[in-house]
């Protein structure tokens, strides 16, 4: 137990985390490439045509995983922000900052693919219904987080301010999740539910899960790679970074 605790604190230091993040990032990048390739193959060649929506429904295999990721990344970001505020650990705040652009990217993909799915199925690119609007607010929260962080010169103050914004914004996540239940929306209800199982065929569900795992691996790989950049940028004056860069340059 005690040795476990020591290990955790060891990796909360950027110096020890930097090489570990590099190795993990490479591993997850390979996993992402393989999983997304398999997922795409299943999306187009294995999953059957939907009896109601024809081939158009195949957008689900990128739309739903991206939408899940947009919410999950926000929650993880809020978790790191909380740790950063409570324990004042530099690395936690760096992780939160590293996740924000990837979260914004998945939110954008969810909105974009949603529009291209909505047009043929509902006849409109966009409606101001609860699900769509709360997802758009999520995109603004990500952008606000990034903008606030870069607007404050002192990085430690920027960390704290954006962490508070992130935690306050977390109230939006349950709103997105339950929006299709709480309000009468044009957006269809959940296709996959924790309580009542799935309303779709098994192969479609597996395809979606493979894509989701691929997006997970992608997000982890990219966030770790970005946190390495952030560590270098912030610790550029420290001895270990200088030594590392001189050694690698030769």
């Amino acid at each position, binding site marked *: 137990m005690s040795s476990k605790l020591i290990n955790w604190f060891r990796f909360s230091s950027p110096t020890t985390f930097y090489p570990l993040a590099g190795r993990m990032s490479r591993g997850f990048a390979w996993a992402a490439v393989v999983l997304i390739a398999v997922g*795409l193959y299943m999306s187009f060649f294995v999953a059957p045509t939907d009896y109601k929506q024809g*081939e*158009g429904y*195949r957008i689900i295999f990128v*739309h739903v995983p991206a939408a899940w990721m947009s919410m999950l990344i926000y929650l993880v970001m809020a978790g790191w922000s909380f740790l950063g505020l409570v324990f004042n650990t530099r690395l936690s705040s760096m992780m939160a900052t590293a996740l924000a652009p*990837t979260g914004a*990217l998945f939110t954008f993909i969810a909105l974009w693919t949603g529009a291209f*799915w909505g047009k043929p199925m509902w006849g409109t690119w966009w409606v101001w219904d609860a699900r769509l609007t709360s997802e758009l607010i999520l995109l603004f929260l990500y952008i606000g987080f990034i903008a606030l962080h870069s607007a404050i010169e002192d990085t430690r103050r920027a960390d704290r301010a954006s962490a508070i914004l992130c935690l306050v914004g977390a109230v939006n996540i349950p709103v997105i999740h339950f929006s299709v239940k709480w309000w009468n929306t044009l957006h269809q209800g959940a296709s996959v539910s924790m309580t009542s199982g799935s309303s779709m065929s098994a192969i479609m569900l597996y395809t979606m899960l493979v894509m989701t795992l691929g997006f997970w691996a*992608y997000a982890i790989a990219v966030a770790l790679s970005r946190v390495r950049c952030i560590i270098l*940028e912030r610790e550029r004056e420290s001895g270990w970074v200088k030594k590392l860069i001189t050694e690698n340059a030769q």
Partner: protein
Amino acid sequence: MKSFIEMGGYALYVWPSFGVAALLLALEPLLLRRRRAAVIRRIQRLNRMNETRQQ
């Protein structure tokens, strides 16, 4: 092949969805690679400046 591209008449909706997602997911690692190269160049410059100052 032709019927695959046509996507049962939904080609205009399916391909922009997957295309833009693929484009963005490919772009982000490229941008990160450039950011990393830029910060490494900056640190190397800092190191050189310090060396000349010490001499």
